């Protein structure tokens, strides 16, 4: 049993979301940095998609009422278990009565707090993710509030070294000088003027404060323009879609985005870089780089292979740990 000590309208329970419910109009949802969530679950020998807490509002504090193994991954944020400082991407077992504090990130924007067994909230439409727009999933379809108590699904006790253990190759996080986002051209790419396409790739875009789980609005010096007016029928859109509304400033659709839209689409961010974007802080520069579909597939397959290898390494390491 854990107790949330700090409330906010933004910290939510997330797993891998509801990709199979999109045809009903339900947002895909799920952790914005799915790799960080997966890493936390790997450290705890959980299924990769076990539900944890996505934290974007700091400081965040929880109290453990029972002995609980947990992991903190994602953004680099000073983490203390009572007085013990925890390294980044770290798993450890808390004793009853101990308090975990996560402070504002030094790098990245989202931290993931995962627990042995995964959080025990009822699955809705096949997932435990909180859908804030729909008001379902997670804990009562809402963000976590002070005083909320959560339990974990039953799982065998995890034997961890007393001081815990962690990852030596952490999730990549955005560089301070800007986030490089790789994209594939999308449906209306060719309808933008040549100058606009040049601007899209060459310009330094800034992440505006209008950045939430639904979408990230960017701002640049020059607006993107179409070479002819377009009136599109509503069509399905996926997280990563870079829409350009009439004002000419791009909006990148994130995990809780609407499933259909009607604005012209200049590009789609590849999944590994969408998680990187989700770790980008407001005001930071963002650059787009167009790659080919083959390159994108290679990058995605490499990431999947790396995750598999990490899972094997951790499993092997765990058999060698002697207590």
């Amino acid at each position, binding site marked *: 049993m854990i107790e949330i000590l700090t409330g906010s309208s933004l910290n939510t329970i997330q797993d891998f979301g509801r990709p199979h419910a999109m045809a009903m109009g339900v947002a895909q949802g799920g952790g914005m940095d799915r790799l960080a969530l997966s890493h936390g679950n790997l450290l705890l020998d959980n299924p990769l998609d076990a539900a944890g807490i996505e934290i974007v509002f700091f400081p965040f504090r929880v109290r453990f009422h029972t002995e609980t193994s947990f992991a903190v991954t994602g953004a680099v944020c000073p983490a203390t278990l009572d007085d013990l400082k925890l390294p980044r991407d770290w798993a450890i077992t808390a004793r009853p009565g101990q308090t975990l504090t996560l402070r504002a990130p030094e790098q990245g924007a989202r931290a993931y707090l995962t627990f042995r067994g995964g959080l025990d909230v009822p699955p809705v439409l096949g997932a435990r993710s909180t859908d804030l727009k729909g008001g379902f999933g997670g804990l009562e379809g809402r963000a976590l509030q002070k005083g909320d108590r959560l339990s974990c699904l039953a799982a065998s006790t995890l034997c961890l070294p007393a001081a815990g253990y962690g990852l030596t190759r952490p999730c990549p996080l955005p560089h301070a000088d800007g986030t490089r986002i790789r994209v594939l051209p999308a449906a209306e790419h060719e309808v933008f003027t040549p100058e606009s396409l040049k601007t899209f790739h060459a310009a330094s875009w800034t992440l505006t404060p209008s950045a939430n789980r639904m979408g990230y609005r960017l701002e640049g010096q020059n607006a993107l323009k179409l070479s002819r007016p377009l009136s599109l029928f509503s069509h399905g859109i996926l997280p990563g879609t870079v829409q350009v509304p009439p004002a000419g400033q791009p909006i990148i659709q994130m995990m809780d985005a609407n499933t259909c839209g009607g604005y012209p*689409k200049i590009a789609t961010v590849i999944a590994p870089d969408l998680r990187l974007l989700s770790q980008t802080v407001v005001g930071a520069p963002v650059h787009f780089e167009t790659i080919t579909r083959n390159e994108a597939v290679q990058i995605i397959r490499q990431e999947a292979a790396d995750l598999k290898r990490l899972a094997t390494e951790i499993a092997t390491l765990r058999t060698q740990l002697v207590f």
Partner: protein
Amino acid sequence: MTRIHMAGAGGLLLDAANGPFSDTTQRRIWATSRELNTRPDVLQTIPGVNNLLVTFDAVQTDPSAMEELLRTVWTQASAEEVPSREIVVPVVYGGAFGEDLALVARFANLTEEETIDAHMAGRYSVAAIGAMAGFVYLTGLDSRLAIPRRDSPRLRVEEGAVVIGGGHAGMMPCTSPSGWHILGRTDLCLFDAFRPEPGLLRLGDTVRFVRAS
């Protein structure tokens, strides 16, 4: 001319739109969607208005093979009729519940009563489901009511709002921002994640609006 566009590495958007909305094209979109949903390497299909989004796992599935499959299935798809139910939607029109009725009437050069009658006279068809959970894009709107969406969306449109925009009719399944115009309000529950079938309406269903008694 049907076009297939990339929607990231694991998505393809088939755009069959050719001028105004076509019912025949839409039935082919549904047929393509149904056929693709039987294929194990298709994660999901999201029918839009005369278009179809298909998703797959690019780690397992070669995108060019999926593109070929999509093209083949689309080419072979027929515009057969789908089973359709009729759903009657009771609406309270105008007043506090339909704040754009006057604006739409002016646009259509009708009185408010004539505007309501035009909205109620339509036999609408659920062409697509999406944007938000349970939102339906209804085709069949009287062309006089084809008012463009608002230049800037309202930040909050209430659940149950009966709306029109961009040539379509719809209803708000939850309170959300929207650029559509509000004609009235219905009490029907359009989406409930906890129902066995969460969405009230299915693709191809016929919708009729009547005055709430």
